């Protein structure tokens, strides 16, 4: 199955520079519909207002972290199947395992490159 380049993607990160980097990488991969939110609370509000094909989220944000956002998404009947990739500097095994248990689809450690992002999106959204 080819990637659906028209699917809207929500990037969640409290650092605008990182949002900009991921936006540019996604644009290079051909994705045009990229939206962003600065923390889990703002992301959840956007997710309830629009259907996204993928969420790419940081972990460490305030007030709501990416980990909490993931748990909210997986607990919500209407959102639970939304693909979710964590992109974070949280690289301890306990973080990865906790995210996997909570239902994350893939996990990228910062710093990362375009090839890693592409391969994870393909793995999650089907290539």
């Amino acid at each position, binding site marked *: 199955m080819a990637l659906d380049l028209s699917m809207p993607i929500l990037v969640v990160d409290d650092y605008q520079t990182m949002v900009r980097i991921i936006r*540019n990488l996604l644009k290079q991969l051909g994705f045009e519909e990229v939206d962003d939110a600065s923390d889990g609370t703002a992301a959840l509000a956007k997710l309830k207002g629009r259907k996204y094909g993928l969420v790419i989220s940081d972990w460490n944000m305030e007030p709501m972290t990416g980990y909490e956002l993931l748990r909210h998404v997986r607990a919500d009947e209407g959102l639970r199947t939304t693909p979710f990739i964590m992109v974070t*500097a949280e*690289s301890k095994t306990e973080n990865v395992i906790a995210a996997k248990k909570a239902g994350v689809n893939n*996990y990228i*450690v910062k710093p990362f490159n375009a090839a890693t992002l592409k391969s994870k999106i393909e793995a999650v959204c089907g290539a």
Partner: protein
Amino acid sequence: MGHSATSAPDTANLSPQKMVAELIQIADYISHVRGEIAALRANEITRDRIPMAHEELGNVLAATAGATNTIMESAEAILALPDDADYRAGVEAQIYTIFEACAFQDITGQRISKVVEALRHLELRLARFATAVRARDDAGLDPAEAARKERAERLILNGPQSKGPATAQDDIDALFA
């Protein structure tokens, strides 16, 4: 001195001479502590060094954010260049802008060195003071620190590791294979 500041002598059984000696010791101790407090130069720390550190770190943040913005703007401009005869000239112009933006590293390095020096002074003075007055920390954490620690533990907020990722991407990938 014979008595610590926290152990009060049994004054009822003291002779006047011993009581005077005790009072002299207490006065000496107070004088000693006053000297150590003066050596701490707390006013200088709060008036000069801490505000300087705040200002320098603020400048570092602003410089890194500004440089990052400039570099990203140049990169985005390169990506948006039309594929025509002027392409190489356009790329070179943006690359020179990127080189100029990278000059921030030298200045921010100097600013951070000043902050590190201020922290070193602070550490030395506090260590000397703590030794002089035999300071002991209160048990437990203050409420704000306790709340921060509880949140970090509950939400597994470890932060970036000091020597690169704790788990390599390949090992993470293996968990998702």
